[in-house]
């Protein structure tokens, strides 16, 4: 593979940007699986709701309001979804959970198609995020004129900040301690007087809220069309599996890995379309519980 330093840097940034979207979606997915044990195939649809809400609010009232409103709205939608539907499937087999959430995802997708139409809706990037970054000004080793879209770099930063916030919440707060403990032994927490189901409901809302953040910043990049949810769900689910079901660190690691793999194989179309599955097979053959999966989870 003959690659210049310029091309390498651009592929690296594209990999990071692709990985950022995957990480934001996979983070919510693995958080929900790790706490509630539910494989939520409707998570892609939550992202879909987020991008449609974001584009509607953005086009009518501006990006600032979209940013303020969409994540909390998704939080509420997540809570309603958990209380209204998902909680009835906690004690059912994973296949039932997959079927019901997958069914819900299709219903939501078709509903959005009915409301907004099947075509892509343009998502205008706010003026402060528009334009390009002159990479050669910051990275002296680059040769000539090398640029990268500013919004895509903003997306990477948002992803890093979100991941850091989630990790801080889980590792630096009492709420996080309860959630981490509940992920390991929810029943024992109840024996200690903790209403763990109420906290897990909040986690479901948080997972949906992260999809909301992803939607606000990812919408202009992934486009706004009804198929986007499913297109992102499959790689995001595989990222959760590769990272280790329920492992947040694993989801971040695997998200970046898959983003990079897709970016670096972009010139080679035949490998590019199968790379994510190839990586999944190899990792699961070598390490069946995923990169950072805990023993006993989903085994």
């Amino acid at each position, binding site marked *: 593979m003959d690659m210049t330093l310029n091309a390498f840097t651009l592929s690296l940034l594209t990999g990071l940007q692709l990985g950022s979207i995957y990480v934001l979606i996979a983070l919510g997915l693995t958080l929900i699986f790790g706490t509630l044990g539910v494989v939520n195939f409707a998570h892609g649809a939550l992202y879909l709701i987020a991008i449609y809400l974001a584009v509607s609010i953005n086009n009518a009232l501006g990006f600032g309001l979209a940013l303020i409103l969409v994540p909390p709205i998704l939080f509420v939608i997540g809570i309603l979804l958990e209380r209204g539907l998902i909680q009835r499937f906690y*004690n059912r087999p994973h296949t039932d959970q997959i079927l019901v959430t997958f069914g819900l995802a299709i219903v939501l997708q078709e509903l959005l198609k009915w409301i907004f139409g099947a075509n892509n809706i343009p998502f205008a990037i706010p003026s402060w995020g528009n334009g390009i970054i002159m990479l050669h000004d910051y990275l002296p080793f680059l040769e000539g004129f090398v640029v990268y879209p500013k919004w895509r770099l903003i997306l990477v930063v948002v992803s890093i900040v979100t991941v850091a916030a989630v990790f801080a919440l889980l590792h630096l707060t*009492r709420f996080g*301690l*309860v959630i*981490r*403990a509940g992920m*390991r*032994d929810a*029943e*024992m*927490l*109840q*024996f*200690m*007087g*903790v*209403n*763990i189901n109420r906290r897990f409901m909040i986690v479901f809302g948080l997972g949906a809220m992260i999809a909301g953040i992803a939607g606000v910043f990812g919408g202009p990049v992934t486009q706004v069309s009804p198929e986007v949810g499913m297109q992102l769900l499959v790689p995001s689910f595989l990222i959760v599996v590769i990272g280790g079901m329920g492992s947040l660190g694993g989801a971040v690691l695997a998200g970046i890995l898959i983003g990079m793999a897709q970016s670096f194989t972009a010139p080679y179309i035949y490998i590019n379309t199968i790379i994510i599955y190839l990586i999944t097979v190899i990792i699961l053959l070598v390490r069946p519980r995923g990169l950072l999966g*805990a023993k006993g989870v989903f085994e």
Partner: protein
Amino acid sequence: MNESKVDAPQTFFSCRELNAFYGESYVVQGVSFDIPEGEIVALLGRNGAGKTSTLRAIARASEPGLTSGEIWLNGQALHEMKAFEAARSGVQIVCEDRRIIPGVTVEENLILAQIAEPIGWTLEKIYSHFPKLEERRKQEASSLSGGEQQMLALARALARDVKLLLLDEPYEGLAPVIVQEIERMLREVKSMGITTIIVEQNAVAALKLADHAIIIDSGEIVFTGTAQEVLENQALREEYLAV
């Protein structure tokens, strides 16, 4: 939270006609017994007799499911509660396999026990009674030895305002020297007057600690009497306990 009911029994703790099941099999059948405040009862029986299931039913675990019966603690209807509500009413279970939360430290295990009110011993008091836990407070809890894990499980129960202590196989898998240490701690718990139900394969050890004994077989109570009666009745022990 459930309030006291007019039909609450006068006894501190009471089980009435408990029936609980796993899947389609009933593991607890018509179990009824009372415990006055401050007494220790040894719940004995062979493997699979329904001892752990009875404790879990009292702690209001989701499994085994309770189909009928009443459980009362100090006038509170535990049978109408979920596990976390029963725990807030004073039920504390020290599980058979200790159920130390992995991935967090010894101290975090204790902090977790004090997230919900009402709480019991402070961390300082726990550490003064269990100095080994203070030495290892920053250590990952699952890396403790079996005996230390048992201490932590017991300390975690005392970190809550415990009114009914359910001990499931506290001596299981421990070396004799560690068993002696746990025995010493349980005698201390007894001196505090905490009402306790102890399930233990080592029947003699449990009986030495207990005031009364209940023998359970195939989910049904087959004997109720004093601990001394069981200790003195070898035929009874051979028939139901095979010790």
